[in-house]
C-alpha cells in the first residue's frame, strides 16, 4: 500500500513536469492557428462554368506557353532550367498536372491576380513585379475566359491517381531539394537565392522537425505560421497536399512502420520479462518476509 502511495506521488510529479515542458510550453511557444482552408475562401469562388474546348484556345491566345510547358500535350517548356532560372528567378511549372493537384478556385484566382493568390504581395509590387504576369483577358468576359482555362487544365490533367512523389515533384521541386531521395530543385541555387532572399530549405527531414499538423496548415497558407515568409501559398487541394506530406514522411521517416511494428514486440517482450521477474521476486521474498 505504501509503495503504491509513493508510486502515485512519483507519477504525479513526473506527469506535472511532462505536461509543463511539453504540451503546455509548446502551446505557449507556438500559438494555435486556424485549421487549413482548402476552399481558399479569401479568394472567392467564380460562379462561371468553364468550357474545356474554348479553354484550350484561350490558353494558347493568352500566352501561357510563353513561359509554361505542358509536356503531356507535347508542349515543351520554352526555356531550359538554367535560362528560366536566370530570366524568372525560378523555373515556371509545367502545367500538365496543374488541374489535378491545385484547387479550381485557387487556379482561377492565380491566373487573374498571381500575387494575391500566392500571398506574396509583401514581396512583389509595381516596382518589383512578380514573374507571372496577371491575365488581363482577351476582350470578352474575363471570368468566363479564366473559367475556361481552368476547365482546360482540368481536362488534360491525368485521370489515373498520381503517385505521392510525382505530386511533390510537380508542386515543390522547383524550389526545394529532397536530398535524402536524391531529388534536387530544378531552379539554379544562386538564382533562387536572389529570387527568394534565402535558399529554400531541404525538405528531407521536415516531417520530423515540423510534424504533420504544422505542415498541413503551413503548406496550405505559409503566412499563417510564418508571417513574412517568401514561400508562396501554392494552392494544393486537400488530397494533393496530403500526398505531399505522405511523401515527406516516406523520405524523412522511412522506418516508421518498422519502428511501430518492432515497438509492440519490444513492449510485449518486456511485459513478459516483468511478469516473470515479479513471480520470481514473490518466490524469493516469501522466504524473508
Amino acid at each position: 500500500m505504501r509503495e503504491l502511495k509513493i508510486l502515485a506521488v512519483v507519477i504525479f510529479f513526473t506527469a506535472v513536469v511532462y505536461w509543463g515542458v511539453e504540451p503546455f510550453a509548446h502551446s505557449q511557444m507556438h500559438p494555435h492557428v486556424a485549421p487549413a482552408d482548402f476552399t481558399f475562401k479569401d479568394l472567392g469562388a467564380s460562379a462561371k462554368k468553364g468550357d474545356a474546348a474554348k479553354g484550350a484556345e484561350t490558353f494558347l491566345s493568352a500566352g501561357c506557353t510563353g513561359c509554361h510547358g505542358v509536356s503531356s500535350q507535347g508542349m515543351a517548356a520554352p526555356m531550359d532550367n538554367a535560362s528560366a532560372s536566370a530570366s524568372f528567378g525560378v523555373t515556371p511549372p509545367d502545367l500538365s498536372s496543374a488541374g489535378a493537384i491545385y484547387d479550381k478556385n485557387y487556379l482561377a484566382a492565380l491566373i487573374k491576380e498571381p500575387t494575391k493568390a500566392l500571398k506574396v504581395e509583401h514581396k512583389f509590387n509595381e516596382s518589383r513585379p512578380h514573374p507571372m504576369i496577371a491575365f488581363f483577358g482577351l476582350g470578352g468576359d474575363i471570368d468566363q475566359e479564366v473559367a475556361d482555362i481552368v476547365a482546360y487544365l482540368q481536362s488534360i490533367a491525368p485521370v489515373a491517381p498520381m503517385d505521392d512523389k510525382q505530386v511533390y515533384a510537380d508542386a515543390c521541386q522547383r524550389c526545394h531539394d529532397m536530398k535524402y531521395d536524391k531529388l534536387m530543385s530544378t531552379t539554379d541555387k544562386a538564382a533562387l537565392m536572389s529570387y527568394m532572399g534565402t535558399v529554400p530549405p531541404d525538405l528531407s527531414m521536415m516531417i520530423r522537425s515540423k510534424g504533420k499538423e504544422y505542415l498541413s496548415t503551413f503548406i496550405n497558407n505559409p503566412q499563417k505560421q510564418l508571417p513574412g515568409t517568401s514561400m508562396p501559398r501554392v494552392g494544393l487541394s486537400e488530397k494533393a497536399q496530403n500526398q505531399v506530406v505522405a511523401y515527406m514522411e516516406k523520405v524523412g521517416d522511412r522506418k516508421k512502420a518498422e519502428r511501430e511494428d518492432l515497438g509492440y514486440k519490444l513492449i510485449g517482450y518486456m511485459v513478459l520479462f516483468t511478469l516473470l521477474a515479479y513471480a520470481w521476486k514473490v518466490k524469493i521474498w516469501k522466504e524473508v518476509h
Partner: protein
Amino acid sequence: MAEIKKAEGIIDWLDQRLAVKVLTKVLMTEYWIPKNINFLWAMGVVLVVLFKILIISGIFLLMYYKPDIKLAFDSVNYTIMQEVEYGWLWRHMHGVAASAIFLVIYIHMFTGIYYGSYKKGREMIWLTGMALFGIFSAEAFSGYMLPWGQMSYWAAQVITNLFGGIPFIGEALVIWIRGDFLVADATLTRFFMLHVLLLPLVIILLIAIHFYSLRIPHVNNQESEELDFDVEAKKYLEGKKVESKVVPFWPVFLSKDFFVVGVALTLFFYLVCFHFDFAMDPINFEPANNMKTPAHIYPEWYFLWSYEVLRGFFFDVGGIAAMDIGLAAFGFANVIFMLLPFLDRNTEHTAPAHKRPAFFVWFWLLLIDMIVLTVYGKLPPTGANAWVGFGAALTFIVLFIVLPIITKMEAKCNGGCK
C-alpha cells in the same frame, strides 16, 4: 604464493587464482541490504541498466557517426536513421535513455534527500553521486551537440558563451573551450571526444567510487534506522531470515530490482518507439544554421531549472548587471546540492522527512520550486513569466540559505521541544 592444487572444476580453478568464491560473497551473496526498503531503492539499478543501454547503443552509433560539421547531420539522420539496419533503433534508444536517465537521477536524488541518505557517514555517497550528476550533465550537453541540428548549434553557442561571464579570463576561456572564435568544426570535434571518451571514462570511475562509498556506511532504509549489519547478517546466515533486518544483494535485493527494471524498460520501449519527441526535440531535426536564430532557444528539460535560475534575474540591481547576477545564481545552483550534507546542521540525527516537520516542508517546497523553475525555464521569458521565474529563482536560493537555520533548530529540539 598460495598453494595451487589440481582443480576439481572450472570454479575451483578460478577460485584458486582469483578467489571468485570470496569475491562473490563480498559483492553479491553476503553484501547486505536493509530489508525495510521500497521501490525507490531500485533506482540505482535502473540507472545502471540505462547507462549500459547508453554505452551499448553509443558504441553502435559511433560506427557510423562523423564528427565533422559538413557530415554530422546527414550521418545521423540519413546514414544511421535510414541506411543502417536498425540504426534508428539505436539512435532512439540512445536519445530516449539520455532523457530518461535524468528523470531517474532526479528521483534517486530526491529519495536520498527525503530519507536523509546524504549524512552521518553517507556524505561520500552523496558527493560522488552529485559529481556523477555534474559529469552526466556535461555528457548530455556534449552529446546533444553531435547531430549538429539547429538546437545543437544554438545551445552550444549560448552555453559556451556563459563562460564569458567569468571575471578576467572569461573571453579567453570561451575561445579556448570552443577552439575557435565561434562554435565551429573544432568545437564539434572536441565535444565529440569529450562525449565518447573522456567523460564516459570519468563516469565509469565515479560509478565505481559511488558503489564503493556505500560499503562502509551501508544502504539506508525507509525508517533511516541504524542497523548493526554484523548482527543482522549473522541472523540471516543462521537461517533466521524472517527475523533478520537485512537481505543479501543477490538474489533477494536484485530479484526486486529486476521487476522494477522490467517495468521501467516496458515504459522505456514505449517511449523509444511511440513517444520520443520529448527526448528528441523536433527542432534538432533541422540542420544547424548560424544565420538563422531559432525563435525559442531552450535546453533539454533536465537543465531547465538551472537555466531558469540563470534567466530569472533579468534586471540590474545597484549597478550589477542582470547577466552577472544570473551567472552568480547559476553557479550557486550548480554547486549547492553538492554541499547539502554540510548545510544540514542536524548532523547526529537521521530520519525520513516525514519525521522532521520543518525539513518536510522544506523538501516539498524545494521540489515544487524546481518544477516551477523547470516549466518556466521553457516558456518565453516575457511579461508575467519573467516575474514567476524571478520569484522561483529567488525562492531556490532562499531555501538553501534557510536550510542550515531550520536544521540547526531541529538539532536543538532532538528528542524534545515542539
